[in-house]
């Protein structure tokens, strides 16, 4: 055992020698859709993306190495599809400011606390690249190494991107990320020169 330090891999692939890998796709529909909504911020776009991913995975199933993590493989197809579609349709979707972003509010918001809604709002204002690393590493339990492989970048890039994404998120929520506020006196030391200076 590698102990508790190692995070559990998301949905470890069950090795079932008799099973067709294609039949395993069904088990990952829910995480695929969750990841797609995180990337697009929009359920309609997410569903199209999942559909495209399923078809690609089906056609290219022989490229899947049995015994490796199928969720990682499917997520890779999904995010690659997302970014290539995005490049293709850039001119059709002039949405730098995240009109799409509003769509994640389609999510049920019943028992919501304000703080969590604020968090969602901030999350949606991140770039897809930042949302991607945060969801993969912060929420779905992929390791930095797995994420680097899925994104096709170096481990160091994933680490720095994740930390920038967290910082950006904190900034958007108006939270400090650990650095003390620069050039500001501690609260107890505030003088009020304006009141006394003539």
């Amino acid at each position, binding site marked *: 055992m590698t102990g508790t330090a190692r995070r559990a891999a998301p949905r470890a692939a069950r090795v079932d020698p008799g099973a067709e890998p294609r039949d395993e796709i*069904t088990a990952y529909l829910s995480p695929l859709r969750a990841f797609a909504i995180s990337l697009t911020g929009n359920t309609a776009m997410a569903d199209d993306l999942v559909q495209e991913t399923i078809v690609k995975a089906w056609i290219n199933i022989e490229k899947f190495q049995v015994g490796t993590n199928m969720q990682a493989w499917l997520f890779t197809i999904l995010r690659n599809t997302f970014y290539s579609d995005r490049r293709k349709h850039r001119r059709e979707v002039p949405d730098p400011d995240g009109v799409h972003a509003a769509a994640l509010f389609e999510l049920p918001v019943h028992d919501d606390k304000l703080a969590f809604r604020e968090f969602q709002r901030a*999350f949606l204002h991140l770039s897809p690249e930042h949302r991607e690393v*945060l969801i993969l590493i912060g929420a779905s339990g992929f390791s930095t190494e797995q994420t680097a492989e899925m994104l096709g970048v170096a481990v160091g890039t994933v680490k720095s991107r994740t930390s920038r994404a967290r910082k950006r998120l904190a900034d958007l929520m108006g939270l400090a990320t650990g650095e003390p506020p620069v050039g500001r006196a501690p609260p107890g030391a505030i003088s009020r020169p304006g009141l006394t200076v003539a």
Partner: protein
Amino acid sequence: MQQDMAVDPDKSRLTEQIDENLKRVYERLLKEEVPDRFKQLLAQLKEKERRE
């Protein structure tokens, strides 16, 4: 080794809070019902394969 652990406590607490919220977002998304169209699509693909 110890050096790695010496993270700014506020910073790591913030990271923890962020990750907790990220997990909430993700788990909520996981709980959403998956539209039937995906299972139908898989069934269609399988049927097509079987006929070929």
